[in-house]
């Protein structure tokens, strides 16, 4: 399978889904995302990303049972797939490899 490209936002959404302790669905992911990043994000952006990730095979979704609080509409719960996990691992590996490649003391030179 072709190595799927993960965008920055996609990566964060994927990580949020992975980090979610309970069943993750649109609203919880959206709230977590805002909380973790501190950014203001529209719900539609989250939805679009979730569905795109599903299409790419990193996420899978199932419809939950009927609910009372949202007019009986069911929730769509997202879970990480094996491919999703591997993609996150790949990304992290690239990152850490790059981090390791940074010469020691470089940041000090910049003066931070």
């Amino acid at each position: 399978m072709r190595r799927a490209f993960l965008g920055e936002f996609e990566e964060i959404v994927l990580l949020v889904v992975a980090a979610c302790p309970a069943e993750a669905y649109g609203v919880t992911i959206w709230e977590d995302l805002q909380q973790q990043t501190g950014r203001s994000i529209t719900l539609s952006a989250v939805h679009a990303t979730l569905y795109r990730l599903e299409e790419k095979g990193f996420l899978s979704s199932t419809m939950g049972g009927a609910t009372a609080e949202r007019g009986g509409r069911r929730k769509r719960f997202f879970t990480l797939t094996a491919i999703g996990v591997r993609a996150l691992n790949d990304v992290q590996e690239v990152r850490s490899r790059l981090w390791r490649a940074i010469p020691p003391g470089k940041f000090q030179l910049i003066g931070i």
Partner: protein
Amino acid sequence: MPPKSRPPRWADWLLERFLSPYLLEDVQGDLHEVFYKRMAQVGVTRARHEYSWAVLHYLSPFFFKPAPSEPNSSVYPSPSLLNLSMLRNYLTIALRTLAHNKAYSIINVVGLSIGLAAAMLIILYTKDEVSYDRFHANNPNLYRITSRDITPGDQKPGYNTNTGIFQGPKFTAGTPEILSFVRFQSNQHDIKQGNEVKSQETFSTDPEFFQLFSFPLLSGDPKTALTHPKSVVVSEDMAEKQFGTREALGKIMFIKTNEQFEPYTVSGVAKKCPQNSSIKFDILLPITISKEDFAQSDNWFSFFLNTFVLLRPDADSKAVEATINRIYQTDAKNTIVEMAKKFGIKSKTIYSLQPLTEMHLSTDLPVNNGLVDESSPAFSYILSGIALFVLLIACINFVNLTIARSLKRAKEIGVRKVVGGGRSQLVVQFLGESFLLCFVAFGLAILLLLLVLPTFNQLANKALSFMYLLDIKLMAGYVGLFLMTGLLAGFYPAVILSGFSPVQSLYSRFRFTGRNYLQRGLIVLQFSLASFLIVATLTINSQFNYLTTKSLGYDDSNLVSVNKSSLKRNEARLLKSELMKFPSIVDVAPKNQGFWGTVAKVNGEKQLSFAYETVDETYLPLFKIPVLTGRNFSPDFPSDSTQSVLVNESFVKEAGWKNPIGQEVNFFAYETPERYKVIGVVKDYHFVALNQKIRPQLFTMKPKNDFGKVFVKIKPHTETESLRAIEQTFKKLFPISPYSYSFLDQDNLKKYESEAKWKQIMLFGAILTIFISCIGLLGLATLSAERRTKEIGIRKVLGASVSSIVQLLSSDFLRLVGFSFVFAFPAAYYAIDKWLENYPYRIEISAWMFALAALLAILIAFFTVSFQSIRAALSNPVKSLRAE
């Protein structure tokens, strides 16, 4: 404010409109969840604003696109329409259904096979009709010379299919496009066959006969067979009859020409003429035309034979027609003027060429004078119409029964749909079933065809054989017929049945309501066709009876007609005196042979054409034809034979005489004009068949005219001894003349042979349509009775009588049959009125004919339906009510 505490409607509406359905539920759910949270945090108004704003963010193509294809679809491919195991299942189910519903299957198969057989028969017939004369290798360059007389001021030209001795040779000589010509003249010659003398039809023709036409010779050279004047070509049948062998080449035949038997040498034996040939010969003689005849220019006006020409393949027939007319105008110029002066002819003759292949079915220019099997396209049309009726009715049965029975199959259809059968699959299944039935019917139809072909041949005067079927085009036609029938019968039921809702059909709440209109309409159509044919049959029948039983104006019973060509006056007297010696013979009267017609002037100027009869004074009394005014010929007036004539009423009417006795008739066209006085008026009688009007008729005793036959009146029930007496006397007096006799009343019946045939064919058609309609009705009645068993049971338990139940079950159908008359009778009236217009003496269309037809149709339908109704009404209600 409760209504406000919910997301704005328009936003929801927008969302529902726009979002792809598979995303809608959870997206909208999430939005609502956020809305209610925000409402608690920031209030309704703010939350509503935010909601609307959020919704607007969803209006992007990403959310609009349809769901990605179901991953399931690749795991379970949708079965193709013609999956092998499905087909096997269809076949099993079809055979099972057919086997379980024998009555239904039999009705359908029998109906369809009768319809198909009728259609096949007619295709065969039509094919034969159009194939006439097409076997000649020289087609399409073969033509017959015909002409039409155009009288100024007269719209309709007089057609003439015959020609004389000149047209062939003179046109050929003057037109390079005409390669050769053949004249074909019919004659009657006496032929010696052993010790007997037989009168036989012979044909005289030109030597090129076998080059123009493709009649193969078994022996003899086609090029020279007819060059010698004393040669003869015989058919293989004739050779067999004459010599007992087909190897007749070089043998001698004695044929009476020029008053004595002369030897003719057989120069060729021809194969039997194909049955689809207008030319059918047994004996062919070379045509002989004397030099004097050929020199006499007025022979341009003597038409008595058929002339055929062969054109060059590249010739334009219109150009050739122009050329031959030019030749005629120059060559016959003087004669045309002369004849116009002598006879007062105003008409102009224009020659034209008729393709040989068009002869057989031509109504204006029919085959005659030795050419046989005259036909009319009307026969093909009527027969095709009947066949179409029968086939249509059979298809209607199929449609009706299938739909009516579908109630029983509703469950099957429901189950099929529930387990995933698509509509198209059901259509394929039901169409397949109808084709299966049709196929069985097709096989049966071929068997049926073989069975009825001999009878049909006899009726239609044909020699069709099954071998005719082995023809690519015809086969294609039959296969087309098969496909068409299958489709016609199966398409509508297939579409209807496949449209059943599975829920309804499985709940068994299924009822026919609206669709009954179609069923009713089809029954009405069926019975309209059937009653139309009943009326037609009744009309033809009564017209036929009218023709055969109407008084002809003379007494044709116990009359024997004996032919004797050129019977002299003294011979006639001798024959009479000899015959009168026998006690069984009442009287003898001589008459001219065949039909003579001529013209004469009356009232000085007026020209009248009439039938010209040569008789003696015994003729009218023998036939019991009354003389209205004046007197009959009488031996007491010796001048009668040279100065007097009798005329009939029509003659008087046409001549416009108030006082006919003593009027003068002027035979001006004779070499020496002759004048006669009318001495009596004879009551009109039908001297020709009743399908022709009585025309003017004139009787003479002129000694110069030979008699050609004698009528012998015999005592009733003395046929055997009288015939023996006549034959003995005849052979004694005229040993070398052929002897043949016939009874006049039988001859008269023969004139209506074609009517008799049509009567039979119509009767057949009517019986077939009624039969098929009735078995269809029977099937429907059965199904309807089955469907209503419970109702009938309840009615009986509540006290309904058998007769009321029979009435309940039958009245529906009978009403439909009654309704069909509304359509059938006007159409039938129109059709029979048109047909009867052909007859100058005809029955009047009367109401009783229609009443009888109506009664017949209703009675037949009633018996058909009541059979089932009574059975249903008599059944024990316990049985029908207990079963559930």
